[in-house]
């Protein structure tokens, strides 16, 4: 059972230019595919198109069955919306049971709510729920129809940080058992949940691969920036360029994860000045300005140097990748 998607669709709003979305990817049984992209990249429209909410060209096939001409209720999917989209006139329990009279699925709504830690909300109405509670109910509603594919549209992005972290943990468990497509603009969520990632920009797929591919071998400077890698023009390395090339003679940029850059190393590849030190949860993020490199280089350090210090940077050869602009 593999979902094969190869769709294109055009969206036009009053007064705005038409927006064109086209994508081609497959989701294998049991896999979580994450669609990652900046806001406005068309990732939500793509997911809604797969769900059957919008007319589209191309095909959506699930295990060989062509779904393209079927309405949403004929595709055997379920959907978790960014803003929950719970039915406000039904209790949480009624929301969860909503789809069960249409689909062959007999999970007990209250048991599903209990699995997600919100058994006590069964009789509450959605407007009285907090964001995290509402999204758990919405997730239970989607799971209740036992969908062949679960579609999730930024389910964490309306939540505050601690709530988001706790629901992300629960999602990890849920997604281990189902086939799903998960849309997000948050690279940390993508990395935590994805078996494979499709990176979108401006309505187009710009890279498809495992999290390791996308985060450690970005296909373009654009993907590298969006996934948080450093991007350095190869020209900045002078004589050393040939050491850093990984085979592609036409490569123009080197990319490297901030956690892989060595700070204060001997035999530095580049030397720069510490611009800024930001305390993050696990460590500090240090940005280093290097002479003729347009973007400052980010490094993580548990024991960061003070801003203004001159520091040396070395890129471990086995941890760098190259790409073309």
């Amino acid at each position, binding site marked *: 059972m593999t979902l094969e998607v190869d769709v294109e669709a055009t969206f036009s709003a009053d007064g705005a230019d038409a927006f064109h979305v086209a994508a081609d990817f497959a989701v294998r049984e049991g896999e979580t595919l994450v669609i990652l992209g900046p806001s406005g990249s068309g990732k939500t429209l793509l997911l809604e198109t797969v769900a059957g*909410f919008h007319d589209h060209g191309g095909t959506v096939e699930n295990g060989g069955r062509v779904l393209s001409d079927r309405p949403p209720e004929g*595709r055997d999917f379920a959907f978790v919306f960014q*803003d929950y989209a719970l039915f*406000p006139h039904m209790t949480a329990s009624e929301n969860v049971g909503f789809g069960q*009279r*249409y689909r062959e699925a007999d999970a007990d709504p209250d048991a599903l709510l209990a699995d997600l830690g919100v058994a006590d909300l069964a009789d509450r109405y959605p407007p009285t729920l907090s964001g995290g509670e509402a999204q758990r109910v919405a997730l239970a509603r989607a799971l209740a129809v036992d969908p062949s594919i679960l579609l999730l549209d930024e389910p964490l992005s309306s939540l505050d940080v601690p709530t988001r972290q706790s629901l992300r943990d629960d999602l990890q468990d849920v997604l281990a058992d189902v086939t799903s497509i998960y849309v997000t603009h948050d690279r940390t969520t993508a990395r935590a949940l994805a078996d494979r990632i499709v990176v979108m920009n401006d309505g187009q797929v710009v890279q498809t691969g495992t999290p390791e591919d996308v985060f450690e071998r970005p296909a373009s400077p654009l993907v590298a920036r969006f996934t948080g890698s450093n991007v350095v023009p190869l020209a900045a390395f002078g004589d050393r360029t040939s050491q850093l090339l990984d085979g592609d003679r036409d490569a123009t940029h080197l990319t490297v994860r901030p956690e892989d850059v060595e700070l204060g190393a001997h035999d530095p590849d580049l030397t720069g000045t510490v611009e800024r030190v930001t305390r993050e949860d696990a460590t500090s993020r240090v940005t280093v300005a290097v002479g003729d490199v347009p973007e400052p280089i980010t490094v993580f350090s548990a024991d960061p140097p003070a801003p203004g210090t001159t520091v040396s940077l070395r890129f471990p050869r086995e941890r760098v990748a190259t790409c073309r602009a």
Partner: protein
Amino acid sequence: RRGLFGVAMATLGSVLLVALGLPLLLFVARQSPSLIAEKATDPGVHRVLYLGVYAPLLTAVVCLAFGVPLAYHLSRGFPGQQLIESLVDLPLVVPHSVAGIVVLYGFGEGGMFPSLSVFGTLPGMILALTFVSAPYAVNAAREAFESVDDRLEYAARVHGASPWQAFRRVTGPLAVRGMVTGGVLAWARAVSEFGAVAVVAYSVEFFYPPAGEQVIAQHAPVFVYNTYLQGGLDESGAIAALLLAVSAAIFLLVR
């Protein structure tokens, strides 16, 4: 903390409130209770008030039965929508006496349905009232449908509901208040209509349950006007006060 700007705006706004409120106040204050009591016990007036509430109620039912489906389609969008919207809203700006004449052209002699007699009949009156009232029902129901988040309908569909099931269990229940409001607005509009009815059906014959037989009466606003022409301001004022009380009661229903 309000400042000069606030005071100036409040003052200007109050002028309009006086222009609307004081006539109503004086109208009520200057009524003669005995004249009102006399009219309130007049069986002829009862017939008029019955017709004045009953015919608009039929109108509201017609407006809802056909207006709600139209409103649903308008709220979801379709090609050529703008033309249909214009057609629905046009009766709002058609002068009331012209509306009556248009209905006579459309449904009267030589009109669409030769076998239908509209001039001076209850069906004609309902048609005239529907023509002027339908936009209110359609627009209120449409607003209610539009205020239901699209994604709720998507959520219903993607979890297995057909369009009809999604409408019956989600969109419909969430829009029901708006539909009721639309019905009451159409009712109120029909109760208040004068011009179109005066042209199409000045007097109509209808079945009057308390008498158990067909009787002839005029639509209440027409009767008020008729009384004004024949009996003067005081006579018509008493009947107008009774009709205003009915209208005000319907109005309280809307809010």
